[in-house]
């Protein structure tokens, strides 16, 4: 392959350089009906799972068909999206915060053709390319991180766990039978690029083995002080180590104080911690970001560990399913999963979801841990 220059001249990087221009301005992408009615919307309604109508003051309407998408997406797939947008929506579309794609039309009569087109497109393996759904009191798409596809610290895969989960809960992506929306998030290590800390259900990759120490290279590849200061629990100290007959500068890790976050590895590649058996999944539940009815809540750890079971993580999807079914059966209308757990008490949550409570679920991280223990005689037998 021959190198094709964009026009950039590496000898004169500042020549004709354009910087600091920011993103494209939003309004050049608005569909006409949006541009016209911005700020004048009166109300909306979910007509069926995945299909919304918004009605403006002057009577204009916009119909939206929402479809699930993979966050990981190729240009081939994007081109197909563009083709659909041009065919039905005058070339307009948008993405949602949760990796869904929205196709908008300005007349009800255009909805059916659009839906039909979307529903019939499938990958050769049989999966939908554009499943319609993700609205209302159901389960919408999962926000997630990179996982094994592109990250250096993951304790599990992201796209795979998400695919396995969405297959499991697919009926609820296309339905609105739950007491309230249920948001699932996924982060492949506890750095949580994806910020899964406030989701109804969160899938979290977790390491359980402290870093290995590549003493031979550590001082050559890493800045030891940076590695030391990267540790949130102060578990890393400088050390002189005998290595193959030589004394080398390296570090020592107090394994008891390691919480397996991998920050040291990010700072120092000579401290890898991933492990086939040590790594796996933590499940959290009960968080939310909305201020609706109750205030935003953090998710709580409800399953301390499940093994990585490639390619479909059946223990994980089974457990998620248990929670969803228990919630669906027991919660009141409008009640988010965390609100339900708090109303019935977390001891009942574990009963009803048939989850085991283990000592790992008791907070022991710093002073605020105390506030999660039970300082009351109010509990259920």
């Amino acid at each position: 392959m021959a190198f094709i220059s964009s026009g950039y001249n590496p000898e004169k990087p500042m020549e004709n350089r354009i910087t600091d221009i920011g993103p494209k301005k939003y309004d050049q992408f608005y569909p006409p009906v949006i541009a016209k009615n911005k700020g004048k919307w009166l109300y909306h309604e979910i007509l069926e799972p995945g299909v919304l109508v918004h009605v403006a003051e002057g009577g204009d309407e916009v119909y939206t068909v929402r479809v699930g998408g993979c966050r990981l997406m190729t240009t081939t797939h994007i081109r197909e999206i563009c083709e659909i947008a041009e065919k039905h929506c005058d070339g307009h579309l948008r993405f949602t915060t949760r990796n869904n794609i929205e196709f908008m039309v300005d007349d009800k009569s255009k909805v059916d053709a659009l839906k039909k087109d979307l529903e019939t497109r499938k990958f050769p393996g049989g999966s939908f390319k554009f499943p319609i759904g993700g609205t209302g009191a159901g389960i919408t798409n999962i926000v997630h991180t990179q996982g094994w596809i592109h990250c250096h610290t993951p304790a599990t895969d992201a796209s795979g766990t998400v695919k396995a989960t969405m297959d499991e809960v697919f009926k609820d992506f296309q339905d609105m039978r739950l007491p309230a929306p249920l948001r699932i998030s996924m982060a492949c290590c506890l750095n949580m690029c994806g910020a899964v800390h406030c989701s109804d259900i969160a899938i979290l990759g977790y390491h359980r083995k402290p870093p290995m120490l590549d003493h031979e290279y550590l001082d050559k590849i890493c800045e030891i002080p940076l590695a030391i200061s990267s540790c949130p629990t102060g578990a890393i100290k400088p050390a002189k180590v005998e290595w193959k007959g030589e004394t080398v500068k390296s570090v020592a890790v107090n394994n008891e104080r390691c919480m397996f976050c991998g920050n040291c590895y990010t700072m120092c590649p000579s401290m890898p911690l991933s492990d086939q058996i040590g790594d796996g999944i933590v499940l959290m539940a009960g968080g939310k970001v909305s201020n609706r009815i109750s205030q935003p809540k953090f998710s709580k750890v409800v399953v301390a560990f499940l093994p990585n079971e490639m390619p479909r993580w059946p223990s994980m999807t089974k457990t998620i399913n248990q929670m969803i079914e228990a919630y669906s059966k027991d919660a009141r209308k409008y009640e988010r999963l965390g609100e339900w757990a708090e109303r019935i008490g977390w001891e009942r949550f574990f009963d009803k979801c048939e989850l085991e409570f283990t000592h790992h679920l008791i907070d022991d991280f710093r002073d605020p841990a105390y506030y999660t223990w039970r300082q009351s005689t109010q509990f259920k037998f």
Partner: protein
Amino acid sequence: MKHETPLLNQLESGPWPSFVSDLKQQAEVRAKNEENIEFQIPVDAVEDLLGVLELSYVDGTTHWKHGGIVGVFGYGGGVIGRYCDQPQNFPGVAHFHTMRVAQPGGKYYTAEYLRDLCDLWDLRGSGITNMHGSTGDIIFIGTTTPQLEEVFYELTHKFNQDLGGSGSNLRTPADCIGSSRCEYACYDTQALCYDLTQEYQDELHRPAFPYKFKFKFDGCPNGCVASIARSDLSFIGTWKDEIRIDQEAVQAYIGGEMPPNAGAHSGRDWGAFDIQKEVIALCPSDCMKYEGGKLEINNKECVRCMHCINVMPRALRIGNDRGCSILAGAKAPILDGAQMGSLLIPFIKVEEPYDEIKEVIENVWDWWMEEGKNRERLGELIKRQGLQKLLEVTGVTPDARHVQEPRSNPYIFWKEEEVEGGWDRDIDEYRKHHQR
């Protein structure tokens, strides 16, 4: 295919869109190359990506290494280096860097524009993207170091499009759909997001901060972009006056003519709509009543949680005196535990040129850049120095709204200037009245 992927192949079944199928079709498109593209990175990059992922599925560990320092000239962010730890087996992805491309507000696109990006990325990268990354950017996954400047040059020169943020920078700000298509929006999230993004391009591209910094813009307390959980400064729309009531529409909901919660519960038969049970009784501040066929709201006691409006969007509408609340310090767990944003400004008008808002932002930054330690997020600094310090540096008068509850410990750190007579005392004078 270059590599066998029996484990990944199992992820092609099932109804949810299969990223494996998508990667495979991409691999095939590249292999066929019907458009005769002069690929600037290995044609088999996608096949090798599938191969290395399959390996991870076999051995349960990642095969990516943290990148060294790669980027485009003059920028300190927007590119993340990535290398495969098995380059001999997967040469197509040996160097496989990420580029973040700043997304447009509301994530609206035209097909034309998206295709332009695809053309660029097919030529100069793997053709694999994230639509979108966690912070909101369009993510181009997988290219080599020589292509970074080329991609950047084409983006800026051909598409009037910049990179996004990474590292200890302002990260690409993100917004909800806002008033463009939502009747709940209390301010124009796209306008504010765009204005601040443009205003702070320097902070976005050149690392001068202790750590990352995020803005997110939610049009209302429903919080669809999760700003309260995911941004160092969270702008959440709200209002100060009355919820507007259309009593006829209230009757229509009660009469079953309109579906409650905008139809969001239609998947189950929840019985007839019961305004008492579904709205009045669930109001967190107990400020509503329905009597004599009329819905009344004691707006003074309303905490604007959106529930009643969500349930009856055709009967209830947000107030007219609109603006936003600003919360500060949200972050994911690392390093010091997760935080949600803490209320800094209960109410501020959102009006161009947003000078008041910018003053808040800049005061926050001045303090954080002065006092923040390396890799200390704003929320951690607030914890370390106290919320009152944040109020002090932003000139905000402390108010009971700033707390969920007042302190339960009485450990008040009085300052010397607050205590009459100061702290200097004469021990000899004291001893005249208090023997040893």
